[in-house]
């Protein structure tokens, strides 16, 4: 009985040792992956920052004003003026669509009459 217990304990120790060994390497691999991901995130963030800066630079008010001036013929953009505000009453109601033709009209006979 005792020897069986010893053998089982020895087996358990070996299993645990293997588990700990594998766990150690898995942890190290995960940490390496985290490090790589983190540096990738850092690079991407930096890149996004550059893109944001570029977007802001391209949208600077001075450039937009110049572009609006250059393309005035096509876009006809003006600085917003007080008289650009409209009132709801100034908008017409949409034109009602024509009702469908239910009673057909004899067109051919009328044409003949005209001829």
């Amino acid at each position, binding site marked *: 009985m005792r020897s069986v217990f010893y053998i089982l304990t020895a087996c358990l120790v070996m299993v645990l040792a293997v588990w700990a060994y594998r766990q150690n390497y898995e942890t190290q691999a995960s*940490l390496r992956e*985290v*490090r790589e991901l*983190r540096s990738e*995130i*850092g690079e991407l*963030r*930096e890149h996004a*920052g*550059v893109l*944001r*800066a570029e977007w*802001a*630079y391209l*949208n*600077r*008010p*001075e450039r937009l*004003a110049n572009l609006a001036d250059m393309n005035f013929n096509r876009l006809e953009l003006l*600085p*917003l*003026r*007080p*008289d*650009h*505000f409209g009132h709801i009453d100034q908008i017409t109601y949409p034109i009602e669509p024509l009702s469908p033709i239910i009673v057909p009209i004899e067109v051919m006979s009328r044409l003949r009459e005209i001829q």
Partner: protein
Amino acid sequence: MTRTPLRPLARILAARRAGENPDSIERDNLAERHEAERDGARARAEGRLLVLGVVFLCAFTMVGLKMSVTAGTDPVEPRAAASGTQIIATRADITDRNGRILATNLTTNALYAQPPLMIEPELVARKLVTIFPDLNEERLIQQFTGARKFVWIKRRISPEQQQAVFDIGDPGLLFGPREMRLYPNGRVAAHVLGGAGYGREGVSSAEVIGVAGLEKALDDVLRDPGRGDVPLALSLDLTVQAAVERVLAGGMRLMNAKGAAAVLMDINTGEIVSIASLPDFDPNNRPTPLTTGDPGNSPLFNRAVQGVYELGSTYKIFAVAQGIEERIVSRSTMVDIQGPLRWGKFKIRDFRNYGKALSVEDVIVKSSNIGTARIAQKIGAERQQAFLGQLGLLEATPVELIEAGGARPLLPKSWSEISTMTISYGHGISTSPLHLAAAYASLLNGGLKVAPTLLKKDYPMPGPRIISEDTSRQAREMLRQVVTRGTASFGEVPGYRVGGKTGTADKPKPTGGYYEAKVIATFASFFPADDPKYVLVVTLDEPVETSGKEPRRTAGWTAVPVAAEVIRRVAPLLGLAPGVEPEARTGVTLARN
């Protein structure tokens, strides 16, 4: 363990036979047994002590080893637990109130040289000068061939320049990564942003620090790594700021002014929507401060915040509002304005003779110095000082700019009666346009004090009450009259019911006295008059309007048209649709007992 009997029969029998007491045998045996037990217990206790000692020794050895390892190795960041935002901890971005970027970071490179590694120093120097024309070839050769082991060449270079330096192909030229602060909008809001430079500098990194304006005042906030990537949102509106600067620059050129400033502020919260000072500069390439002459002439000088000027008649409304609030006068009280008003050796005159007496309302509308001085006389120095102090006109503004703390108002040394009289029409006290805007906002928003701020507020924080709602309304109505029938008639913008007060003050000479033909023209306005939303202060430095026969310098001819144009451009951008002025109430008078 075999147990020895206490009374072994053989020995007992032998003792009996010999006539001895057999009990002594038992006692001897008992004593022996006790001794043996005691020895055993001691041995066990000693063993336990030993084990315990070994355990403690191991534990302390472990602790000692861990401590020496901790002390002897470089610190490592905990890698497993760190949130994503702190991966690149950089200076926080600055955005306007709508999230448009005003300042951000960019990674570039710094160029340095290690002359011992260099192969052809002369050739390198010649090629570097073709890439960077501002470098001096002789000086470079001297540096490269001397005893120095390390030379900084350029703090910041662009990717194109970096490629060109690569193409030189000399191993002695090296790059160090650098963060740089970028202001993508160039000159827009230059004085607010200030600029940034490098603090402590190493080969592989450098510390970016603010050198002026908001960047310096809020340096700690912007550098706080705990912020993550949350940008700092300002109260400025980029579109409005750009429009104000554009209109102001045009106005400054038309009015032949040498400088101009404008402050546009939310009347209820004190948020500065736009603050401009001309001439301006590019914060990406901040000019060096002037070493000679008046620092006020430098483009770095923020006229809206640092420029403390006598702002003239714009102050009159403070005296009149206080008079009405303290029931000293009412709007219709007639004030004697016969001039000149003498006080000791001083004489107070009006710009024109307006007759013998004017109502308090007309004192404001016609801008009578004498009338205001008389009202101030009744108020008295002490109460006037307290009132101006409540409006924040006696101390530096709390705005988040490093320059603001240094711009303290200039006050008279002793607040005598003549000071009271001159201060009532804006002479003898010098404040910045920002002070004036904050004071007008506090006076006209219903009487609650506002503190000017550049940071976006998420909710309004009403300040302490300065004047009653009713006095505030009367002040608004009087200032509206200044535009409809008074000195600021050019300030009328159809649909926006502008109210305001002009102020023209002679510029003081540095040697004492005042210039004859140099003025500071100011228009402090608010709109819409019936439901005020914004305060706008426009100040022009030495304006001259030359369309007439003789040059005109008064604010009504110079600052007012510029301010009107600013309102015309900016009010639609602020989402204010033009409206119709409500009819004056007839029949019903607001009364209170």
